[in-house]
């Protein structure tokens, strides 16, 4: 471990960042203990009218959307044949895998009886539920992501025979991953279809599944751009030459795609608005907030991505990727928290407790630490010398 750490160029010692990370970990562990000893009531602000809070709104909805980079990138490279983005596949799959793994961990905090999470598959299934769809696809997709990522781990461990076998499955796994992603990304939106009386009409639409799916592609593209920026900054020492070169062409292609999809998303939103004839709501407070969401977090990134692509300006593109990621979070928060239970008086509305926030930050931190541990060791941001050009 220590030799590994030295190898990866990590210096020992306390830095402010490390102190903060340590603090988050300690707090996270304390709240975890509280959660499982005092129940949900001990740590959350959930109540009977607000059964879903931050852990669903952020950890599940945003987590799954932002982990879409894995299926988006692998589909682009292996199905659409855009081989020039090949070096982005592994980091994207890795973030996807870690993202989904953390989603499952977060669900372990959120559901009342976590050890029963496999019940829908092994004890009694409720196939009329969108949640069943979500659970099944997430479980299967986590497995797919694990397999898709395993070649990197196997190269690192030196199991080349198994590695070659799994690499042969790449296409099948990719197709399976896209199917599962389409299904559960949209099913997450579908969860809210059952509650038209609770979700504000501006956000409630029969198109929710489509909107969730389309926006998840934007989330995936933006996350991959963002990741490549961050990796270039923080893991430059492990990036090899082809990865460094693709660092510059990838944002261009992905920005162009994201601009187009954001435009489509915008029109879908307008169409759903028109179909439900919700124009009247636009002048209310919620209407303003809805217009803000559409303009600042949909149209603006769409425009900026397009400009960044035309002018080949990486700085604009990178900035936009942050904006778009925030936009996805805003949208998921709106559907699950802000516009949900909108008719309830303010005193009965939900606001997360600090301990819920701690757990969300704790899990994200764990994800980043795991990412760092893996990329500084396994061939993710560089190609393993023995397998160059073989995938």
């Amino acid at each position, binding site marked *: 471990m220590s030799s590994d750490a030295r190898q990866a160029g990590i210096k020992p010692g306390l830095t402010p960042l490390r102190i903060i990370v340590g603090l988050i970990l300690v707090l996270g562990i304390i709240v975890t203990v509280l959660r*499982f000893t*005092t*129940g*949900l*009531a*001990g740590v*959350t602000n*959930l*109540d*009977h*009218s607000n*059964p*879903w809070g931050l852990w669903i709104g952020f950890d599940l909805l945003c987590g799954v959307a932002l982990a879409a980079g894995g299926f988006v990138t692998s589909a682009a490279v*292996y*199905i*659409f*044949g855009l081989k020039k983005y090949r070096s982005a596949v592994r980091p994207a799959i890795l973030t996807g895998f870690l993202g989904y793994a953390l989603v499952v961990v977060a669900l372990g905090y959120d*559901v*009342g*009886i976590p050890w*029963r*999470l496999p*019940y*829908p*598959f*092994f*004890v*009694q*299934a*409720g*196939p*009329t*539920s*969108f*949640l*069943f*769809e979500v*659970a*099944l*696809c997430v479980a*299967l997709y986590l497995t797919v992501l694990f397999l898709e990522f395993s070649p990197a781990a196997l190269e690192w461990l030196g199991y080349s025979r198994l590695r070659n076998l799994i690499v042969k499955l790449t*296409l099948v796994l990719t*197709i399976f991953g*896209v*199917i599962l992603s*389409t*299904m559960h990304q*949209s*099913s997450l939106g*579908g*969860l*809210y*279809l*059952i*509650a*038209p*009386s*609770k979700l504000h009409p501006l956000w409630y639409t*029969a198109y929710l*599944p489509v909107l969730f799916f389309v926006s998840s592609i934007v989330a995936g593209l933006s996350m991959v751009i963002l990741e490549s920026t961050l990796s270039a900054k923080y893991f430059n020492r492990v990036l090899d030459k082809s990865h460094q070169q693709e660092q510059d062409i990838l944002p261009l292609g992905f920005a162009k795609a994201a601009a187009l999809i954001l435009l489509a998303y915008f029109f879908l939103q307008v169409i759903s608005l028109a179909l439900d004839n919700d124009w009247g709501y636009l002048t209310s407070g919620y209407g303003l907030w809805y217009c803000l969401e559409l303009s600042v977090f949909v149209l603006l990134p769409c425009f900026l991505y397009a400009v960044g692509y035309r002018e080949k300006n990486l700085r604009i593109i990178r900035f936009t990727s942050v904006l778009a990621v925030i936009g996805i979070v805003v949208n998921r928060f709106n559907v699950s928290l802000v516009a949900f239970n909108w008719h309830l008086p303010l005193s009965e509305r939900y606001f997360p407790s600090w301990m819920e926030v701690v757990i969300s930050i704790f899990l994200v931190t764990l994800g980043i630490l795991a990412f760092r541990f893996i990329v500084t060791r396994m061939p993710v941001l560089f190609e393993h010398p023995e397998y160059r050009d073989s995938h």
Partner: protein
Amino acid sequence: MSIDRRTFLALLGASSLNLVPALEAKGASKHFEGYPDSYGILFDSVRCIGCRRCEIGCNEVNDLPLPEEPFEDLGVLDKKRRLNERAYTIVNKYHPEGRSAPVYRKLQCNHCLEPACASSCFVAAYTKTPSGAVIYDQSVCVGCRYCMIACPFNVPAYTYADPVSPRIMKCTMCYPRIIRGKLPGCVQACPNEALNFGTREEMLSLARERIKGHPDSYLDHIYGEHEMGGTNWLYISGVPFPELGMNENLGTTPAPKLTSGALAAVPVIAALWPVLLGGIYVMNKRRDTQAEQEKDQAVTRARTEADEKAEAKLKAFKKQAEQEKQEAVAKAVHEAEEKASSQTDEES
């Protein structure tokens, strides 16, 4: 943990091999008129005096923990309360506009004909029984609380404070009692016939009778006859239901219909996507191989052309060399002949 047939089929269906969820969803989208002879309960807000006896009766027959404020404290009626983990039923007091006397309304599970809770639960913990009661099975519940999101009447409550085996709490329509021919606890406790029990049909007729008999006291609307596709608990009132905190905008679409269409699309994705994606892959692959082939051809063509040129050059070169050689030979012969002839000239 054994996989039963239903689970297995569902797994198959959801994992794209057949269309079970679509078929099931289709089955659910036919409007369900309710089990024949299922029971119903009629709540009459005109007769309700706000005594909270039904709350006590419910608490006793269901062995629930005592509430924080004693039942005798009628002051709590003034607070807007909701159903919670200690109470399957609650009575709230309302002051409708233009009325001096308050109006009371009892809340509990409405036992929908097609319950949102049942259709939303991913372990099918809820069952709509032929008696009309919607009952919940704690032994499979994961505690995801999606049923609480789904219920349009905000009924299910959760024991959040229990770290080990938290559960949903909601009115059972006194299922264990009614199947044995007993009255529900709340109905039995009601001193003023504000609660009535019978088959749903009987309750609908009773409601219509009361409305017809006292058209001044009642509004001509039986809440629950059609709301959310109909419920087994029915309400009549002298004031508009929204004044009693009841949502009149729920529509008549039963909850399962809200999702069945979109759910039916899921297997379609599972069936069509592989074909589509495979097609795109093959097209790209072919484009790539074509490009590859063209490149190969171009290379060979270039190579043969070069070869031919080189050969022609060589030939020309050889020809030239030949010619030069011949010329040289001819020249030498000529020279030799000349030399020879000059020698003969000298000798002679």
